[in-house]
């Protein structure tokens, strides 16, 4: 299948500051991609570069095989045929829903226009609201109008800049699923920018994790979670605990959880100190297991309890357990490891990151669940 979007070694600079640094990825026609990262990571700048609002300092962007941006040339946004959904929706307050959606429809007769508008409104379940003004709509309805307005002229690619961040959590989850269904049904190629990994997981086919302008990993949500390529991705996606270990002669790793075969990006040498990543779902509670650990903290999460377990050497592990296994703090419970891929990183951690991991281990429910770290 042909690549609808190609980003090759793209860099965006504001003055001397590099906000997007040598990013490359591709998106097939009809696929949904996501740029995920903490605020200030450059994801929005990259999206704006794809839309044509920011020039490239280096690299190239191709839309449908056509080069639209390279240093010294930035095709104007109005000529690119990109649809964009902004986080504030940017609906025109002086135009009705119908006129908003028809805003980008050019070269169509009045009848064709209203047909297209009706079709799109039907697609998002807003039929009959065509004569309303934006301020008469709820947040979710406004969001849908913004979406179909961008889709109306059948753009080469649809760019969504944190489109759900203005909505409350429940509506956000419902809309994310809905938008994916709509985009897939229409076969729209789209890129979503967000800092919310749940949103990324439920909407996108492939996700790029950005940090400080660099693309750390471009992968499926599953791989990002279970096989993060570096500490940044491991840290940003999901929760987990880091356990120190040491590489043995046969390439195995020795830690307080025993010996296991590691999975490395760069194979470390013998004797090198590493850290092993364990996700809460890697540690399975099993009353039959002989290996028992003490519960030092627990958080009720509805379907599950998130237990913090202490190892003999003082390190902590997180363990996700169905909530009818209700154990008290101080109790010892049996666990076993259920790890498909052992992920290990060479030790290069700063004291700050250490503190952060410790904090997750100490998680006591006063804060927001650490799943949404940003």
């Amino acid at each position, binding site marked *: 299948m042909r690549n609808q979007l190609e980003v090759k070694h793209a860099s965006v600079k504001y003055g001397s500051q590099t906000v997007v640094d040598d990013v490359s990825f591709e998106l097939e026609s009809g696929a949904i991609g996501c740029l995920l990262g903490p605020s200030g990571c450059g994801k929005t700048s990259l999206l704006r570069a794809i839309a044509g609002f920011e020039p490239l300092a280096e690299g190239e962007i191709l839309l449908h095989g056509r080069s639209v941006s390279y240093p010294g040339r930035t095709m104007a946004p109005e000529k690119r045929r990109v649809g964009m959904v902004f986080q504030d929706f*940017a609906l025109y307050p002086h135009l009705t829903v119908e006129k908003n959606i028809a805003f980008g429809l050019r070269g169509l007769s009045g009848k064709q226009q209203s047909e297209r508008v009706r079709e799109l409104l039907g697609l998002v379940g807003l039929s009959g609201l065509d004569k309303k003004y934006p301020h008469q709509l709820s947040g979710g309805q406004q969001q849908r109008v913004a979406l179909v307005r961008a889709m109306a*002229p059948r753009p080469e690619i649809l760019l969504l800049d944190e489109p759900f961040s203005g909505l409350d959590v429940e509506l956000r989850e419902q809309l994310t699923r809905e938008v994916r269904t709509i985009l897939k049904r229409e076969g729209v190629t789209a890129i979503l920018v967000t800092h919310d990994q749940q949103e990324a997981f439920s909407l996108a086919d492939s996700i790029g994790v950005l940090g400080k302008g660099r693309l750390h990993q471009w992968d499926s949500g599953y791989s990002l979670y279970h096989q993060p390529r570096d500490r940044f991705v491991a840290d940003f996606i999901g929760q987990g605990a880091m356990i120190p270990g040491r590489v043995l002669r046969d390439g195995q790793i020795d830690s307080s959880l025993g010996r296991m075969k590691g999975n490395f990006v760069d194979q470390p040498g013998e004797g090198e100190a590493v850290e092993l990543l364990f996700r809460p779902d890697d540690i399975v509670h099993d009353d039959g297991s002989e290996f028992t650990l003490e519960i030092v903290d627990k958080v009720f999460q509805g379907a599950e309890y998130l237990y913090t377990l202490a190892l003999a050497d003082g390190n902590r592990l997180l363990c996700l357990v169905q909530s009818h296994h209700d154990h008290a703090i101080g109790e010892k419970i049996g666990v076993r490891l259920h790890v498909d891929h052992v992920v290990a990183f060479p030790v290069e951690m700063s004291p700050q990151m250490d503190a952060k991991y410790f904090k997750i281990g100490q998680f006591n429910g006063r804060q927001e669940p650490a799943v949404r770290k940003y």
Partner: protein
Amino acid sequence: MRDAVSLRSARRKPRHTLLSTGVNAWHFAVALLALLLAVPVFVVLGHLFEPSGEVWRHLVDTVLQDYVINSLLLMIGVAIGVLLVGVSTAWLTSMCHFPGRSLFEWALLLPMAIPAYIIAYTYTGLFDFTGPFQTLLREWTGWGYGDYWFPEIRSLEGAALMLSLVLYPYVYLLSRAAFLSQSICVLDVSRTLGNGPWRSFFFVALPLARPAIVAGLSLALMETLADYGTVQYFGVSTFTTGIFRTWYGLNNATAAAQLSALLLLVVFALIMLEKGSRRQARYHHTTQRHQVLTRFQLTRKQGLMAFLICFGALFFGFLLPAGQLLWWAFTTAEESLDGRFLSLISHSLLLAGTASGLALLLALFFSYGKRRHGNWLVLAAVRMAGMGYAIPGTVIAVGVIIPFAAFDNALDAWVRERFGWSSGLLLSGTLAALLFAYLVRFLAVSLQTVDAGLGKIRPTLDEVARSLGSRSGEIVRKVHIPMLKGSLMTALLLVFVDVLKELPATLILRPFNYNTLAVRAYELASDERLADASYAALTIVIVGILPVILLSRSITRSRHAQST
């Protein structure tokens, strides 16, 4: 998360402004125009450093002290007046329940429609010896001339009272906004801690609203310093009357400019005070959430008091003078409504219409310059162009007349030398000079309104249009103009009304015998033909009500927004 969002959009903006450091034609034009508009201020300020002439020394020896003391006393009087009336009415209408509250909420703004010089001569007509009030008093008591004491309205205290009656809405507006924004959190806390209305007011609301109150006060004081008509009519020697007298009586431009410069320094101090207070007011803003207020329920007696306070402000600030004007107009209808009155109206319409149109064009030019090509140069230029608003019309007139005369004389000398004939006075004493002065003084009004309107069109609205294939022209036509329409009309209206009311600059700069409504009303009143002045005055007041309606509408709208 919302914070992260707003942070990002806040960060995106300065990026453009910092990046575009290259100077293009827009920057050049904006800077040039702003410089031109700042000429009067610079000319006046320049006289601070001029060696003082004999006239100046004479002024210092004789009247300067009077000017300073009278201006100061007037400011103190007005400050006390506007604080008492403005803060109390603001507190009552925003925080307490009493009959007529929602009516007073907007009606208390009505006195703004009456220029101080008009209320001054109306009150003179009402309360001086031959006025209806004293006549009635004599008829009832049988007293004659000299049998009783009656406060002299044409005095410094009288002037302070007149100015307070029409300037308190500044304090009312700003402190009301402050009370409303703080109410929901801190006042509720105060009430749960057992404080009644009075304690809540003095220990919580008042200290928190102080920056807003000070900002309103400094606006009222700027208007006080700018006033010429009232003090001249009441025979109080202040800076503005002094500038006039030095200019016309002593015929000394330099000394007049030096007086103006001194006055300007005081005005600048007030501007700093206002700006500083507004900045502080932002920090004192205690909540972002707006909920339905629970107002204090007043007892019947308290409610009556509250009603009387608000009604008093409205009655003495608007109803009484407007009623008197109406009565005069009614009694003089036959002799006043003639061709002369029509020519007054057409002159005023022409001036106000042209000035507001020009100001709007300039404001659009500056505002778009800022939006599209905003770098430090443009920002500085726009700030400079908006500087004139706080500056008294008298000062601006002096600052306009000096460079215009110098230009005319230089041109004349050059033409004479070169071609052997005289070009005469090309600009001085023309409508062009007057219009220029209006622009200097009132551009800020237009600019603020257009800026605010354009600011509401978020950059994403432009970007959406571009991503949907619209070019700049189409964006302006399909997005900006429809969305700006209201702001543009408001800008036109505000400048129009301000020009209509403006007295001292018009008096000084108008072409010979060119009369406007304001000038004529003032002249007739000065000649003690109070009733004859009523038509011109009433016209100004009626037109002046229009922006008050606009303001009150925005107040009701914000109230609705709060209750949803």
